[in-house]
């Protein structure tokens, strides 16, 4: 029974259950006394109690509670929280090592990716033929859950996963600036993710991931699971964003000037700046929605003078920038990989950095392109159309940088580089079709049709997922100390690319025929294309199995990787694979830029400082 006495998963779960009971108790009592109580009240307070109990039981708050109680810090406990190399239990407890947290995010994202992918299979099963298989509520719940879970994946996989793992390594730091806050940002998520995945047990919800009121005000209790998850994710991303920004500002190794910062670190810097500014806006919107449901407020309730369109403004003021929270880290990963496999310096590095910043700034001025048919004032369409189309200029610079780097290069087509090319070909389709949605006349036809579905899958899969796989194949040897199988990697790439395009390219056509998004049925003349799309989508799932097999097999018994198998110049490759617990025995001194390929003939030009002399 020792495990109950020490902080950890078991006690966290126990704490969560107890916390839920404590939180929900006053509500049950009030109901007994005849107050006008809804199940939602119990869920809201119970959830808050469960989060607190979970974090307490897990030991996530123990350093801060000790401080608040005036106890001296326990250095043994602090060191234990950092974890020892080779100790697998550190992945299942409150561990402060950024590499452990990065992997926790990465694996969590992948599990969610598979879950939401399976839900997509269910959707495509319903849509394979005209007519209905499941009832409308089930379909809407599956569709909505697929949407929000995939959004979570897209938001956390690169930033939380690869970002946490590699930003400290790439800037020559031993950890993030606030390791405990970093761990907290991860451990806030499991209860929220459990809640959203379990939302069908609460009746599900039928609003899609956009949760527009008034529908979201009348939707089932599952809607509230959605709101609580959304707010929790917001809290987690805000504290994580602060951590990234402080880390990049304060923890860079000597000589790591801003212009020597790897492009991936720049991408994360811009991304987390967006997160920091935008997230509280949507959290406020979601909280107002929660209050409308539970406390009788009428922020968005038209019958009592509220305005449902206000919610759309608050929602998209975050959720459009969120698209760049997904895409910019992928741009960073892609541009990080390109120079290594083209053996050339990153083309137009400074302009690429400026383009990230430009995307970050412009991303706040385009949100209403989601609202061209919402009923907002006509004149407002024009500035939003202009800014939305303007953002394609900095986005185009990402292509300039990648193409300029491969041009005249000495290209090696290892698996990571294949995903870079896949990114270029697929994301460009997402970008170009985005202009059709930014342009008001065409958007009046396309808005809320399958064209939109096709478009955002090309941007999020073509952008974010391709960047994620480029980064994962690239950094896998560093993370695991083992090489991945190149043949399976290539098979995964080609299979996934063909299956993805076979699935989503026809959806542009479906949208042009007027097929609405988020419907469970369609006219018979669209049957053939829908059947094709359904069959093709199942092959995407199969291709992911190739990756899964490759990753697990290589991790277990792939060939050992050297410290720097790709002969890259950035700092993470100057330490062992996998890196030791505190990354650098001696903090490195950086003497050159990260992409000086062809300038210094023999490999890395950034050496650890001090006397170790690897």
């Amino acid at each position, binding site marked *: 029974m020792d495990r109950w006495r020490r902080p950890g998963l078991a006690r966290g779960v126990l704490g969560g259950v107890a916390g839920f009971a404590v939180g929900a108790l006053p509500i049950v009592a009030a109901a007994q006394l005849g107050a006008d109580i809804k199940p939602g009240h119990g869920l809201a307070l119970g959830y808050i109690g469960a989060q607190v109990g979970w974090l307490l039981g897990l030991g996530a708050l123990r350093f801060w509670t000790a401080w608040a109680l005036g106890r001296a810090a326990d250095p043994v406990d602090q060191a234990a929280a950092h974890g020892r190399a080779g100790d697998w239990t550190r992945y299942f407890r409150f561990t402060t090592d950024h590499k452990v947290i990065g992997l926790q995010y990465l694996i969590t994202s992948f599990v969610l990716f598979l879950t939401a992918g399976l839900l997509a299979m269910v959707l495509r099963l319903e849509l394979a033929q005209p007519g209905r298989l499941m009832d*409308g509520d089930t379909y*809407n719940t599956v569709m909505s859950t697929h949407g929000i879970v995939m959004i979570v994946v897209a938001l956390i996989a690169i930033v939380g996963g690869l970002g946490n793992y590699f930003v400290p390594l790439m800037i020559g730091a031993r950890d993030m600036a606030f390791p405990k806050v970093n761990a907290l940002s991860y451990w806030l998520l499991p209860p929220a993710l459990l809640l959203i995945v379990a939302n069908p047990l609460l009746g599900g919800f*039928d609003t899609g991931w956009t949760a*527009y009121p*008034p*529908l979201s005000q009348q939707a089932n209790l599952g809607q509230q699971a959605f709101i609580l998850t959304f707010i929790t994710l917001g809290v987690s991303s805000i504290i994580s964003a602060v951590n990234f920004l402080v880390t990049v500002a304060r923890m860079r190794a000597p000589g790591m000037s801003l212009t020597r910062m790897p492009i991936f670190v720049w991408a994360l810097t811009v991304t987390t700046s967006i997160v920091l500014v935008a997230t509280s806006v949507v959290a406020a919107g979601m909280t107002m929605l929660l209050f409308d449901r539970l406390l009788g407020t009428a922020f968005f309730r038209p019958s009592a003078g509220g*305005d*449902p*369109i206000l919610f759309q403004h608050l929602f998209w003021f975050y959720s459009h920038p969120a698209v760049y929270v997904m895409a910019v880290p992928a741009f960073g990963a892609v541009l990080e990989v390109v120079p290594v496999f083209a*053996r*050339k310096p990153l*083309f*137009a*590095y400074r*302009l690429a950095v400026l383009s990230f910043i430009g995307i970050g700034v412009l991303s706040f001025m385009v949100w209403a392109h989601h609202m061209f*048919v*919402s*009923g907002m004032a006509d004149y407002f*369409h024009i500035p939003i*159309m*202009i800014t939305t*189309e*303007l953002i*394609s*200029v900095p986005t*185009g*610079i990402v*292509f*300039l940088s990648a*193409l*300029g780097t491969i*041009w*005249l*290069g*000495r*290209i*090696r*087509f290892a698996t990571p580089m294949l995903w870079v090319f896949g990114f270029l*070909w697929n994301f*460009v*389709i997402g970008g*170009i079709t985005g*202009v*059709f949605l930014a*342009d008001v*006349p*065409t958007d*009046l*036809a396309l*808005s*809320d049709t399958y064209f939109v579905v096709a478009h955002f899958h090309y941007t999020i899969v073509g952008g974010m997922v391709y960047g994620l796989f480029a980064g994962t194949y690239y950094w896998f040897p560093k993370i695991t100390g083992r090489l991945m199988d190149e043949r399976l990697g290539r098979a995964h790439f080609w299979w996934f690319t063909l299956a993805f395009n076979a699935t989503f390219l026809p959806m542009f056509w479906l949208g*042009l025929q*007027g097929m*609405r998004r*988020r419907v*469970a049925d369609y*006219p018979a003349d669209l049957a053939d294309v829908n059947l094709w799309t359904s069959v093709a989508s199942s092959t995407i799932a199969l291709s992911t199995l190739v990756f899964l097999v490759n990753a697990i097999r290589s991790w277990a018994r792939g060939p050992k990787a050297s410290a720097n198998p790709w*002969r890259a110049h950035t700092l993470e490759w100057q330490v062992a694979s996998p890196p030791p617990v505190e990354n650098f025995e001696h903090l490195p001194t950086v003497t050159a830029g990260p992409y000086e390929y*062809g*300038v210094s003939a023999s490999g890395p030009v950034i050496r650890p400082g001090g006397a170790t002399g690897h």
Partner: protein
Amino acid sequence: MTARRDLAVAVAIWAVLSAIGVVVVLGTQILPVIASREAEVVNGAFVMLTVASVPILMLVVVPSAYSAIRFRASDDDETDGPPIHGHRAFEAGWVVVSLVLVIGLAAFGTIGLLEIRGGPDADLEVRAESTQWAWEFAYPDLGVRSKELVLPVDRRVRITIVSDDVLHSFYVPAFGIKQDAVPGRVTYLHVTPTVTGTYGAQCAELCGLGHTKMVAGVAVLELSEFEAWVAEQQPQQP
């Protein structure tokens, strides 16, 4: 110089493929049905954007594919490429060209928007009333209500859109446009049907359980037929 020749060859391939692409696009019907003046404007915008898209797509596809073939090194080659960090004039050119392109597109978009949303007064007013999960159409000046939207051809119609519960969206694919219904507000769109026939209206904004089935018929009739239909619908004179 071979680098210059590579550039010339790639540019030539780009130009040829772009030209072929534009020809293909111009021969393709983009919107399947164009049954209103507004849909004509929308379709014009589609053609313009699709034509502009082709050279942009090729700008990514051609250099990447060309590089993949031409600049591929063998796996045991350990040499680096030339240390080119950038090219000021080329970078500036890329930015300026994309800026000009974007401003041009936005200008065309604005003109299209003014054509669709602005314009003269309507000849007929119809009220599209949405509710979970059905449409009903009222003709306030004619004293008619109908489950089907019936319109005279070549008459400019103002459709005001209301909802008494959640958001819906009035969408007739053949007319090329849609507009959300917002409880507590009155939204509108203008449409001038140009081709007689029967079409479909659908709800395009997710509105819950019956969203999929929230559709209605649309009929565009000759003016005389329309007047006959109105007379038939109007309450009988005592």
